[in-house]
């Protein structure tokens, strides 16, 4: 691990922390980390416990599996149970509960549901099974939307007519706007997401300083990256600046990946509105296929119920996704809701905030001892 040590250097961390403490001594600063990967770093390394009390981190909606509403899972199951269909999905989506169970249960009932690593695998299944209709459950932010787009362009190029997409791609900027408009939460800045930014670049975040007068710093995933990004946010506030800054220049180019953005634009257009778990309907926040791709649109080819399903009463994923409560403040966290028997999406997806807390044994704000997944959690 010749490269990693410099990102974990305790002396460097102490230096940054002392600057953070100094700048944050007057006031209270609440920063949202948008990306589920950052949430993991923060809990794995106990960053919340070393920060001064005046700096609070709240988790955002940046887990693509977590934000899919229950009704869409039911729609997926309805399509999967259509005779003559092979329904393909990423592994993470298979266990996400809808109002009518999950895709694994549909498979157990006899539906032909297959787990794939890549949308290209779904296309290969379609080519190998010309007598079946093969549907790909497309989910994810701008990190996965280009892959779906390229796959669809290949399907068209090769004339694969028995392949279609059940499209649930979402975009990262509209939920940030929704959170900023929400009266529940007052933020002082954002840690911008890591890998989504490698695709979209820095420009789409400019509305944060421009419209909401808040700073945003795109951050890497090492503990020192997070600390440094927090310091950059505090420096901006201290110096009266308000900008989009990039701490993660190692991977995030200013302009993003132009080719990836181009294929997204070729294949998709914005939906007028889309429901997000916990955030409700957000206008122009999700992607659908352009009209010229209608022959590959599962929502047009199959009967999709499109019924809105309310989240279970006990589940507080909505509040967790908006950063209003911490996972351990949810009534069912670690008791009725665990990674083995998840009630909410934030516990299902390994990228979710609740799964992060659970995996690192965070059942209260200050508990730091990791527990193993197989052990029953002991409330502190």
């Amino acid at each position, binding site marked *: *691990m*010749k*490269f*990693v040590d410099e*990102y974990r250097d305790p002396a460097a961390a102490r230096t940054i922390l002392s600057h953070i403490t100094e700048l944050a001594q007057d006031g209270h600063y609440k920063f949202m980390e948008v*990306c*589920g*990967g950052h949430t*993991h*770093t923060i809990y*794995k390394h106990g960053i919340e416990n070393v920060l001064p009390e005046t700096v609070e981190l709240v988790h955002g909606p*940046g*887990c*693509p*599996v977590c934000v899919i509403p229950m009704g869409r899972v039911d729609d997926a199951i309805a399509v999967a149970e259509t005779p003559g269909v092979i329904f393909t999905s*990423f*592994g*993470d989506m298979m266990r996400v509960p809808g109002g009518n169970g999950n895709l694994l249960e549909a498979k157990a009932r006899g539906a032909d549901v*297959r*787990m*794939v*690593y*890549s*949308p*290209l*695998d779904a296309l*290969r*299944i379609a080519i*190998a*099974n010309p007598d079946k209709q093969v549907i790909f459950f497309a*989910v*994810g*932010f701008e*990190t*996965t939307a*280009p*892959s779906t787009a*390229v796959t669809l362009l290949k399907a068209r190029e090769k004339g694969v007519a028995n392949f279609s997409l059940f499209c649930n791609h979402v975009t990262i900027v509209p939920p940030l706007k929704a959170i900023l408009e929400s009266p529940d939460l007052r933020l002082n800045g954002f840690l911008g997401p*890591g*890998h*989504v930014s*490698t*695709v979209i670049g820095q420009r789409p975040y400019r509305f944060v300083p421009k419209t909401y007068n808040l700073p945003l710093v795109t951050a*890497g*995933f*090492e503990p020192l990256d997070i600390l440094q990004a927090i310091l950059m946010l505090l420096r901006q506030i201290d110096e009266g600046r308000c900008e989009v800054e990039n701490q993660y220049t*190692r*991977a995030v180019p200013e302009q993003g*990946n*132009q*080719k*990836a953005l181009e*294929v997204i634009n070729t294949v998709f257009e914005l939906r007028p509105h889309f429901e997000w778990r916990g955030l409700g309907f957000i206008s122009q926040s999700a992607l659908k296929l352009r009209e010229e791709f209608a022959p590959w649109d599962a929502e047009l080819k199959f009967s999709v119920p499109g019924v809105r399903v309310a989240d279970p009463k006990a589940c507080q994923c909505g509040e967790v996704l908006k950063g209003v409560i911490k996972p351990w403040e949810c009534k069912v966290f670690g008791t009725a809701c665990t*990674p083995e028997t998840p009630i909410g999406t934030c516990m299902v997806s*390994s*990228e979710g905030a609740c*799964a992060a807390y659970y*995996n690192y044994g965070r059942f209260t704000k200050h508990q730091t001892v990791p527990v193993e*997944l197989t052990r029953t959690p002991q409330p502190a």
Partner: protein
Amino acid sequence: MCLGIPGQIVEIVDPADQRATVDVDGVRREVNVGLVMGDAGGIKVGDWVLIHVGFAMTKIDEEEAASTLDFIKQLGRIYDDEMRDFSAEAPL
């Protein structure tokens, strides 16, 4: 899925079809490199890339690749799930 996993290009299989073999932590698989072929310097054997769902999305350097792999390995289940899916054959 949303977190990219770093891999090194070990073979350009078919440039016209944008296919290359990558090595992720000792496991090899074919991925699509069409979205990074236009980057400065193109894409060649030995390059490091961040991979999402079978597509190389960003070129990175060796140092960043090591750091990202180490980060994802520490996540336990995320790494296990990713590598299980990455090494799986398409269920044709």
